[in-house]
């Protein structure tokens, strides 16, 4: 399983890539694998104000459904509309084409406290 070094991760298995005060968010390779074939992704509207730790969207497989939580607070800047027609991109390219939303962060340092790849790997090992 692949956890790129340049990303930050949450306990709920979201990943974040920070570019200045913009946070790009998706779900990790672990999460997409656990969920199975993604059949549907529900994303917020652009402009929605998000609070860290609160659900912003949903990903569904045939027999499971999972909320996706905002890793940081801020405003939705852009959503990946490709996912609405082809949610399977989350399975095939979780870290690149499968990104879900971009958040304009209220606090540009908000992501600093999230786990790095090594800590995330340890978190998964611990969850068993």
């Amino acid at each position: 399983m692949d956890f790129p070094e340049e990303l930050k991760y949450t306990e709920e298995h979201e990943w974040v890539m920070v570019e200045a005060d913009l946070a790009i968010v998706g779900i990790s390779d672990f999460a997409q694998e656990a969920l199975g074939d993604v059949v549907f992704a529900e994303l917020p509207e652009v402009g929605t104000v998000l609070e860290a730790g609160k659900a912003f969207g949903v990903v569904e497989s045939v027999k499971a459904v999972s909320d996706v939580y905002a890793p940081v607070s801020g405003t939705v800047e852009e959503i990946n509309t490709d996912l609405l027609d082809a949610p399977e991109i989350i399975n095939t390219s979780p870290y690149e084409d499968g990104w879900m939303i971009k958040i304009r962060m209220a606090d540009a340092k908000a992501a600093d406290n999230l786990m790095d790849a090594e800590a995330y790997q340890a978190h998964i090992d611990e969850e068993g």
Partner: protein
Amino acid sequence: MTIIGTSGLVLNEKLLFEHSAPGRKGYSLPKLDVPKTELAAELCREEISGFPELSEVDVVRHFTRLSTWNYGVDSGFYPLGSCTMKYNPKVNEVVARLPGLADIHPATPAHLTQGMLGLMYRLQESLAEISGFAKVTLQPAAGAQGEMTGMLVIRAWHEARGSKRTKVLIPATAHGTNPASAALAGYDVVPISSDGVLTLEEVEAHMNDDVAALMVTNPNTLGLFETNIEAICKLVHERGGLVYCDGANLNALMGIARPGDMGLDVMHFNLHKTFSTPHGGGGPGSGPVGVTAALAPYLPGPGVECDGKSYRLESVNESSIGRMMAFHGNVGIMVRAYAYIRSMGPTGLKHATEMAVLNANYVRARLEGVYDLPYKNRSLHEVVFSDKDLEGGCHTLDLAKRLIDYGYHPPTIYFPLVVKGAIMIEPTETESQEVLDEFCDAMIAIAGEARDNPELLHDAPIRSKVRRLDETAAARKPKLKWEEVG
């Protein structure tokens, strides 16, 4: 060993709409014997686009062919756990179709429907006696509506006492309808863990002044009797709450013990499980609810009452939660259930329970050691194995699909959620030792195939009308109706 699954001649059949030919008719009506009236043009629709035009023969052959692609209890062994797929007696179908019972309009005055009201009253009384509750409503249409009814009654009881509790405790082993029904009564659900049977400590840890009720299933979805139920009910009551019982598994208790005697406050029945009415490919069911005397004023109405001489439908009183359906519930199902109770009598019902429990324990004894048995307590009417010991990279789903090739309906799978790869087998009392032996032989043979030739499981089923279906594609681009091409 004889494999009962085989391939016969199965006929293909198009969709109704693909058969249609303009001008073809499958009906006849009398000539209009009054002057024809025209509806104002602005109210009228065009002809219904795409609606079928078929002859009677087309229709009969269509549905006859479709029926052969199904597997029912009459086809063979159907050990679907928690669904109690017992044999559906044929005479019950006959009595439910008697014109004097089937052709009554629901608004016919009570003095002209004494036979039907009497039947419903006796069914209410019989269910109360079997379950140990003070009063029963027959109105809910199915188990889930019964649960909702029960939770609304609980809420009404609390509100009447000025209590504003907001939470309901539900064990992780519960059927998904439990939390969904509690939510419909406006409650927040607090899941509690339960490893096998529920402990007093677990309930105590969560029971506080904000908890309105605990929902349990007894015996639970692992087929285990909740041995601490009395103490748990006592505790919940002491702390001002009530206990709801999901009665889906009542087939394990008839004549042995009564939920109403255990301290439970409310329970729904599934007439389509315990009382032998057909499952109909997904309904109609019937989900009567029994309650203690304290909760009786809150039941939905109307219910059937008797003044010693005649029966009447008692309209909804002030404290009642109101009505759950347009009329009196799924009456045709009640007729079948009452016929079953009359045919079985008190000893027959107890015998059914004993044989159901014997059958489950027999299957367990034959398969233990071949399949992993996560909980070792004495099973009642059903037994839950896991796929832990299945070799060859095979999982519960593969086993289930291979059972189809052997000629069986698979058990309930992947439920309850507390057992990974659960295989939940409920044989019911209507299966003979020979049937159980053949089924167990098949289960054992499949475990061997998983070890020696796992592809047989991965490719299964191969003898059914269709092979494994692409559920992912179905969900990604849902096609939920037929549409004319072009």
